[in-house]
């Protein structure tokens, strides 16, 4: 269905995409120009935006991670961060104060996602600590607690030499939340893919694969939004960051990740 009275024409679908942030710059400007001349459509878009804000505000507290999981690690990964107690001031906990609708709809989804992750926690820890990749590991979903170099932290505490595991940065800045981890067959062994999500943007994926020997390479952008990716080699691992972001934003995020890895001190 086309909305009349604009050049270029703006479709109903584009109005919804405008609200949900799925338009490129040219179409976004076209929609903005259309809305300036179509008060009815502008009013509808305003309502839709308010609905989105309404929903996000209502679910903001129960989107917090449950207390049973370890707190997300700080940018510099330490075993203390992994062991930290999430029950700190301001932490909303499980959100059982939610209404019955939240319990019926939202938590079953999140619970299933965490349950799927929990089933593979042991496998994830083993994968991180083992140098040799296992056969048939593809398709496993790993728990968040197994991600941030848990094996590294444990061996460091015991005074053992660090395994040749890649550094896994933490993207919890900029409102991103870890939603899942998956091990996949890489080019030389197994690679770990971390999935992040932000309430007002599409998912983001960071894949890391260990490579033998220390080597570095600059950021290399490939593809275009929504399938853009930025790859680089750093501290014995290949990193690939991809998402539905525009390339400048993706590159900026990759710079942050790169800086975080560079700043990591294993001692």
């Amino acid at each position, binding site marked *: 269905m086309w909305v009349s009275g604009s050049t270029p024409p703006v479709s*109903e*679908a584009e109005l*919804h*995409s405008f609200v*949900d942030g*799925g338009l490129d710059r040219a179409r976004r400007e076209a929609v903005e120009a259309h809305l300036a001349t179509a008060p009815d459509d502008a009013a509808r878009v305003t*309502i*839709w935006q*308010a*609905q*989105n*804000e*309404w*929903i*996000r*505000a*209502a*679910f903001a*507290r129960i989107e917090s991670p449950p207390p049973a999981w370890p707190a997300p690690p700080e940018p510099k990964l330490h075993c203390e961060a992994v062991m930290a107690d999430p029950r700190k001031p301001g932490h909303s906990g499980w959100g*059982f*104060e*939610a*209404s*019955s*609708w*939240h319990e*019926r*709809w939202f938590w*079953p*989804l999140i619970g*299933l*996602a965490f349950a*799927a992750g929990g089933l593979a926690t042991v496998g994830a820890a083993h994968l991180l600590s083992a140098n040799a990749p296992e056969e048939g590991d593809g*398709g496993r979903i790993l728990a968040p607690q197994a991600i941030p170099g848990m094996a590294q932290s444990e061996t460091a505490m015991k005074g053992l030499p660090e395994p040749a595991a890649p550094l896994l940065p933490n993207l919890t800045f900029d409102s991103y939340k870890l939603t*899942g981890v*998956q091990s*996949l067959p*890489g*080019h030389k062994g197994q*690679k770990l*893919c971390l*999935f992040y*999500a932000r*309430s*007002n*943007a*599409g*998912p983001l*994926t960071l*894949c890391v694969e260990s490579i033998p020997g220390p080597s570095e390479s600059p950021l290399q952008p*490939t*593809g275009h939004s*929504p*399938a853009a*990716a930025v*790859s680089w080699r750093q501290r014995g691992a*290949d990193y*690939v960051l*991809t998402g*539905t972001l525009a390339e400048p934003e993706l590159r900026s995020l990759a710079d942050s990740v790169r800086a975080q890895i560079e700043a990591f001190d294993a001692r």
Partner: protein
Amino acid sequence: MRNPAADDLAAAVLHFLDLYAQIVEDHRARLAAQGQRENENYKRASAQGNPALSLPKPSRDSLSEALLNLALEEREALLLVALEGFSHAQAARILKISRTVFIARLARARLALGNPAATTPPARPRRALPSYLQLIK
């Protein structure tokens, strides 16, 4: 030149969406089972002459009420983009429908949800703060 790493990542993202689709289907099945149980409870209580006891009315805020009034597929479409942040194409893939159908569901959901400014904003019920004073008998 194609980047094999980027191709792998694209496949990983698709796999993630498929996993999400499975979660949505599991949730549908749970809802269906729950609805069936509630119906059976209602029938059983009605047979005993006391239907009011079978369906306790939980307190809901206006947003929960509005979302509950949506059809399940409309609610899924709206929450996948508004809450979960998926793009329309990704949400359509998760729901295993075409993008056109997805937009239609999203439009219906937004129309039915109404104007939040006209209703009371959702107020999250506060949990009772734990008391640090203990009653000693």
